């Protein structure tokens, strides 16, 4: 008991010493130097900034500070958008564009992932195919559009093909890069337990490459939207690209802005969908 009491006494004595020492040298807290460089979530800042910019833009247009020829007022663009809804044309344009986007992107991704896996798994395929991928990837697919029109026709074929080719190459590269980065020790573990080749590919290699494949999807989806507009600018009756091209030709800048806004919403939606897919498929990560 007495020992315990002495122990309790100790810190108190230390504080007392401190109090006495205070007269000798000033006691200050250690300055805090940590903190910062950490992301905190601010949910509504972007929305707020967007609203403020639109309001400023509207005020600028109304007061004549921004010339109506240079840039239409947001209200006019909104009017053009309302027109699209009223006439129901928006669904025609959107469905035509979505059809091309969905088919082109999914088929391109499917073939891309398959070829990417083949390149990663078989060294003979890698030796044969990867130089072609490197050589063809940097070619802007828009430059090939005339060829695609000759090969696949002026209709849907050439448009889907442009998107498909544009999506294919980055997907191949993302996939085999992802497979190359799968932890070799996990593969060795699979072999040591006598797992079949197919099981190792299905249960170890593909899930291990999935993060890289999904970030590849994010890039290829943006590429698909860019190519969609480019492809629709040639010989398309409906589609967001056709709408924008027509608006541009007529210098109907309000419609042009409305079309661009549609693209932006499309891009945001696709990005959001991929984020959802990532969160679900990669839920094993922190």
């Amino acid at each position, binding site marked *: 008991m007495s020992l315990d009491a002495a122990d309790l006494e100790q810190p108190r004595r230390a504080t007392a010493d401190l109090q006495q020492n205070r007269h000798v040298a000033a006691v200050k807290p250690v300055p805090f130097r940590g903190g910062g460089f950490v992301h905190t979530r601010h949910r509504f800042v972007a929305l707020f900034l967007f609203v403020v910019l639109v309001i400023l833009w509207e005020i600028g247009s109304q007061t004549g500070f921004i010339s109506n020829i240079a840039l239409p007022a947001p209200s006019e663009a909104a009017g053009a958008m309302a027109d699209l809804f009223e006439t129901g044309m928006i669904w025609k344009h959107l469905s035509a564009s979505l059809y091309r986007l969905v088919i082109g992107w999914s088929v391109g991704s499917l073939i891309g992932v398959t070829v990417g896996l083949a390149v990663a798994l078989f060294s003979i395929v890698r030796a044969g195919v990867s130089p072609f991928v490197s050589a063809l990837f940097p070619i802007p697919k828009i430059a090939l559009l005339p060829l695609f029109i000759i090969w696949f026709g002026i209709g849907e074929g050439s448009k889907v093909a442009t998107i498909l080719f544009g999506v294919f190459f980055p997907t191949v590269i993302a996939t085999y890069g992802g497979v190359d980065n799968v932890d070799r020790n996990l593969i060795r573990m699979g072999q*040591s*337990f*006598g*797992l*079949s080749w197919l099981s190792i590919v299905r249960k*170890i290699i593909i899930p*291990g490459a999935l993060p890289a494949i999904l970030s590849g999807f994010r890039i290829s989806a943006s590429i698909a939207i860019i190519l969609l507009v480019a492809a629709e600018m040639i010989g398309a009756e409906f589609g967001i690209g056709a709408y924008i091209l027509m608006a541009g030709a007529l210098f109907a800048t309000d419609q042009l802005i409305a079309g661009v806004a549609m693209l932006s919403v499309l891009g945001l939606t696709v990005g959001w969908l991929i984020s959802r897919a990532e969160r679900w498929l990669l839920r*094993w*990560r*922190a």
Partner: protein
Amino acid sequence: MELILDRVSHSYGNVEVLNDISLSVGSGEIVCIVGPSGCGKSTLLRILGGLEKPDSGAALIAGDPPADSLNPLTYVFQDFALLPWRTVEGNVSLVLEDHAIPKDRARAIIADVLARTKLSEFAGAWPRQLSGGMKQRVAIARALSVNPAVMLMDEPLSALDSQTRDLLMDDLVDLWGQVGFSACYITHNLAEAVRLGHRIVMLSRRPGRIREIVDIDIPLNERINHPAETTAIQRRLWEAMRDEARAADRELSDVA
């Protein structure tokens, strides 16, 4: 079943890592292999389990493995090698899926090995949520689930802190008491070897040769009550190894 290494030598390029090594792991026996770093311990284990072919000599199996053994030679790795995208349960299930085992039988095996390794309540956890010790327990559970004839353990406790290591050593001793597994256990930690090994094989530094073989007769679960004897063995091994370890430490290495 007995696992035998018969006059094995191996080189990487012109660096000889193993020289004329013969040893055997009998049924229900834990053979610890110790040696300074870079003496070819891990290479030896890879050869034992058929992940690498030796330049000369051979790894042999005498007798048949038990009929219900799904993977007679089963590794436990230093880095655990758990799939991060599978839960604890899923990681064990992975190694059963390729064998045509009825679903409820597989479920029973998984429940059994998780109970033995004290993991039952963590069946649904992701590997990232587990401490190092728990991860290695999962890896041991996974190894037990295929009912191995010999477990090939490559420094299984070396990535863990010393407290966790002590806890896991106790668990391994308990487990051996229950299951009586055989193992070839590689370590550079003499305390582990003296605590877990029925036989300790000491390798010299590169090229690894067998320097000494020590049999310890004290039963595993009683060793903790014989600190004097075990400490004496450990010290004797360290005396023999110290100069080699020092020399190995000062060596330049091109072999991973």
